[in-house]
């Protein structure tokens, strides 16, 4: 009896999981079919709007170029996110620890986010030279802000009762961080990272599209990332290839976003906020 119950519960979760995969897939198929039909029936020039089938065939014919671009963009995004995470968490913790630092840094931090990336990208190349460095720096700049803000907010959310216990125990600031606060803030930090990966992908595209035609010239083995491929495909009237690269960018952002979401659920299985005890 008990086992019947368990297996039926498992099948419900299984069904729910299947549905969570099927629903977005179905929507994607419907939209794709509508797009395909629109492009075919109206007989639209594939240079203006390639049909999904054109994009798919370009994805196959240009697969080596696209794969190399995907690899390069992925490594820039992952490297940038890693650095952004370290810097963002450190800054968030510092802002949490010192109210003075918070008041001093916050306006600068928020203001810096209003600087347009397309303006910043060529400047970074001028300042830092060609190559990977300015690209990584650009990704870090766009990605570390959500991490820092999320870290600070998550650290500030520690329950007042736990705070009382720590004060009573006479814990030092670094003990609080190490033994309690950082782990408690982790789900919040991961939420910040989920936003950051999406920003990082956009940052990587901009980083690519500015400096890297020169990068390619300086380093012929490098083909540039997906952003470069998009940038090059448009003047070559290979709109289908541009779309294929964009689809890969979207897939990359989605994959990173989802895997961090899974990490977040593992960290905090309770439905409640991890820090505020009800």
């Amino acid at each position, binding site marked *: 009896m008990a086992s019947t119950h368990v297996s039926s519960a498992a099948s419900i979760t299984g069904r729910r999981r299947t549905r969570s995969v099927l629903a977005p897939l179905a929507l994607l198929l419907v939209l794709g079919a509508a797009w395909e039909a629109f492009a075919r029936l109206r007989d639209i020039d594939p240079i203006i709007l390639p049909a999904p089938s054109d994009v798919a065939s370009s994805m196959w014919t240009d697969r080596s170029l696209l794969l190399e671009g995907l690899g390069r963009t992925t490594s820039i995004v992952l490297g940038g996110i890693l650095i952004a995470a370290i810097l963002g968490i450190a800054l968030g913790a510092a802002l949490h620890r010192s109210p003075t630092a918070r008041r001093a840094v916050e306006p600068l931090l928020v203001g810096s986010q209003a600087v347009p990336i397309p303006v910043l990208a060529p400047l970074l190349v001028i300042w830092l030279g060609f190559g990977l460095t300015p690209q990584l720096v650009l990704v870090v700049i766009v990605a570390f802000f959500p991490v820092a803000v999320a870290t600070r907010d998550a650290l500030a959310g520690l329950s007042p*009762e*736990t705070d009382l216990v720590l004060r009573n125990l006479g814990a030092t600031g670094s003990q609080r961080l190490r033994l309690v606060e950082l782990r408690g803030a982790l789900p919040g930090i991961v939420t910040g990272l989920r936003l950051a990966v999406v920003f990082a992908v956009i940052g990587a595209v901009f980083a690519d599209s500015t400096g890297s035609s020169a990068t390619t010239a300086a380093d012929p083995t490098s083909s540039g990332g997906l952003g470069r491929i998009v940038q090059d495909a448009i003047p070559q009237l290979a709109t289908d290839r541009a779309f294929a690269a964009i689809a890969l960018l979207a897939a990359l952002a989605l994959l990173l976003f989802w895997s961090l979401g899974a990490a977040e659920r593992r960290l905090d299985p309770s439905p409640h906020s991890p820090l505020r005890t009800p």
Partner: protein
Amino acid sequence: MSVRDDIPPPPAAKNARPSTDGPARDLGPTLLRATGAAAGFGGRDVIAGIDLEVRAGETVAIVGRSGCGKTTLLHLLAGLTLPSAGSIDAEPAALMPQRDGLMPWATARDNAALPLRVAGIPRREAHRLADGQLAALGLGHAAGRRVAALSGGMRQRVALARTLLTGRKLLLLDEPLAAVDALTRSELHELLLRHLATGGHGAVLVTHDLDEAVRLADRVLVLRPTRELPANQHVPSTLHPGPTLTGKVGDRLEHRGGDVLRLALLTELAA
């Protein structure tokens, strides 16, 4: 009643240990002495004229209405709030806050081990000691479970384990059983009776539950404003002696004796 209100009894009378029929426990050294202490927020005293002595081997219950300053008093005794008047002379105290203050994402073991980790004891050794304490409180089987997955009663046991593992002699408990159901509460009462005033511990237990106070404590004090509350005027609370407790701890609430005690406490509270 009103005469006694105007002239607070001398501290000696307040702290006199009641006679008991049961085997009198030997009281150890003084763990806490408050003399005319006052505390509050923003320049306004919530409690004032607090005289209290707690010795090892005794549990003192402090009852009062909500909002009378019970938590402020415990924070004062714990050294988390500085007195605005008078003095507090106390051993380092272990505070068990009103809601448990546990880390819900961490295991029972990690939570119980927190004081040891703060004291600089390595993780492995701290975990070993935490496991021992949890087992002594009947939670050996749940040491590796996340606190978020534990019931209210189990959480309170974890919080008690954490409090005891501070190694401090003076225990300050703020409504420790306010959030658990009646059945769990009576289980935990047994546990508290076994741990609060033993092993050189002395405890101050703040509660609004009269039965709990009578059941667990050797002495009951009532925290309430000294005078009748004049309209629009704030009067700080102070400690008043509660009814004298007699008989064995477990028997106090049985039959008529319990009713008399409750009535006496209610009268004192309403005074």
